[in-house]
């Protein structure tokens, strides 16, 4: 297998982008990625795009063709990858495997979701859960995570204040991200007093409905030097994926995410590092409780202790001795354009590790040179982890 690197990244703003269409979003992200890598369209051998549900959100399937055409990239192969909210990172994994195998040298991998063109987004989002045995009985997507939170509180004594502090820190970080959907701070009181969505979760524990797109340029590591300075090459040290039951009720435990644990253990092994080597992480906080659970599954703290670590501010950008978590603001503040999220997370780590000017206001101190992302589909039925490094 060949070494694989990232040489470019671009994204749109995330948010309720009423004036923007599905196709304009992904083309903007793709063009920015190509420009940042200093490559030309003709250098691209193949493309993948992560998208959860253009069919339900904009009534459009066959988006691989649509995007290749509108990006001016015909006739290269174009493939759509779908795994609910983990679609983006799964698309990246396909690109990594493609380049590592030698099939392609340069691959464009994008993620996109246009969620605001549909009236009942709640129903569309619920298609990430088991439609026949969860959604049909009235389980909404937030309520599934709320049930995880309720059980977590019962088993580990997590308080609503500890959980809410997650959102406060995410908004603090998001306030420094011009692409974020919510680039402003919130107080603990505002989180606690926000309207209930699915108790115990309130509005400010939930990621928003977002439009947005993100794109990366993935390249064989040696060839990368033809396009960018060696200092600007960020290497993909691990790409790992795992599956679990689609329905929450079928799991032995709902206070952990087994697929996240399996995928991250595999990724650490591939990269030959340990959790303590991680400088910065982007984790999938579609709901605050998931941020806490993923901190534990990634090995940053023991089971049941994430709430306290968050409340003590250990995940903040300027805290010393703990990985900085979600400097972008996470899904909570940066926004969650489903299929784009997995790419956006990796893009943030790419910027952080190369200390790009895009993140100068929220730069994490890079000591060991490793960053990790974890992208979750549904309530954990699919999880994909990537480890990046500024060292080959």
């Amino acid at each position, binding site marked *: 297998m060949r070494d694989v690197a990232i040489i470019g990244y671009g994204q749109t703003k995330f948010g309720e982008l009423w004036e923007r269409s599905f196709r304009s979003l992904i083309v903007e992200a793709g063009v920015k990625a190509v420009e940042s890598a200093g490559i030309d369209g003709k250098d691209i051998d193949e493309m993948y795009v992560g998208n959860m549900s253009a069919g339900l959100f904009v009534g459009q399937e066959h988006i691989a063709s649509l995007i290749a055409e509108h990006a001016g990239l015909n006739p290269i192969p174009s493939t759509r990858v779908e795994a609910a909210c983990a679609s983006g990172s799964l698309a990246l994994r396909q690109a990594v495997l493609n380049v590592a195998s030698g099939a392609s040298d340069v691959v464009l991998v994008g993620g996109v979701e246009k969620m605001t063109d549909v009236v*009942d987004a*709640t*129903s569309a989002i*619920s298609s990430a859960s088991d439609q*026949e*045995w*969860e*959604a*049909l*009985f*009235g*389980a*909404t997507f*937030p*309520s599934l995570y*709320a*049930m*995880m939170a*309720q*059980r977590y509180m*019962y088993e580990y004594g997590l308080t609503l204040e500890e959980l809410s502090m997650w959102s406060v820190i995410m908004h603090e970080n998001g306030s420094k991200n011009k692409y974020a959907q919510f680039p402003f701070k919130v107080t603990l009181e505002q989180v606690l007093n926000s*309207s*209930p*969505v*699915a*108790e*115990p*979760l309130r509005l400010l524990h939930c990621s928003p409905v977002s439009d947005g797109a993100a794109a990366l340029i993935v390249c064989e590591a040696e060839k990368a030097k033809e396009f960018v300075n060696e200092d600007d090459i960020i290497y993909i040290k691990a790409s790992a994926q795992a599956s679990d039951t689609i*329905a*929450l*009720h*079928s799991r032995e435990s*709902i206070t952990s995410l087994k697929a996240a644990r399996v995928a991250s253990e595999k990724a650490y092994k591939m990269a030959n590092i340990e959790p303590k080597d991680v400088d910065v992480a982007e984790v999938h906080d579609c709901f605050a409780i998931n941020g806490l659970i993923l901190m534990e599954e990634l090995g940053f703290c023991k089971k049941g202790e994430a709430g306290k670590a968050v409340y003590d501010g250990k995940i903040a950008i300027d805290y010393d001795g703990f990985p900085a978590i979600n400097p972008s603001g996470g899904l909570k503040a940066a926004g969650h354009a489903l299929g784009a999220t997995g790419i956006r997370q990796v893009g943030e780590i790419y910027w952080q590790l190369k200390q790009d000017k895009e993140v100068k206001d929220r730069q994490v101190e890079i000591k060991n040179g490793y960053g990790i992302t974890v992208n979750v589909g549904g309530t954990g039925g699919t999880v994909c982890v990537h480890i990046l490094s500024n060292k080959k």
Partner: protein
Amino acid sequence: MVVRSWRHIKERYNLIGVICKNCGTVYFPPREICPKCRRKTKFEEIKLSGRGKVYTYSVVHVAPKDFEKQAPYVIAIIELEEGAKITGQIVDCKPEDVYIGMPVEAVFRRIKEDGDDGVITYGYKFRPIEN
């Protein structure tokens, strides 16, 4: 969507699950193979009691279109006596009275309507067992 409802009448009306005779695990809803035994699966149908305890729950305030009229309502995962866990609403009590570990039993109820003239979906909900 009529067929999609009709196909699951047995499970949704009568709580028919499956038990794997190879490993003893009870599954609801029924599935094609036992993930533990795979091709050694020996499934038999089993009628579940419908009795169990609340494993976790949430009070839903923001509901999808089909459930808007019911909000706020309680959605829960129930751990049945036979060991399988199942998602359903808890009714016939106030949301604030629900707690983890609460004994409940299944009742036959209307789940939702598919628009004004559409199919009415029936199935199980759960209510507290009187002490």
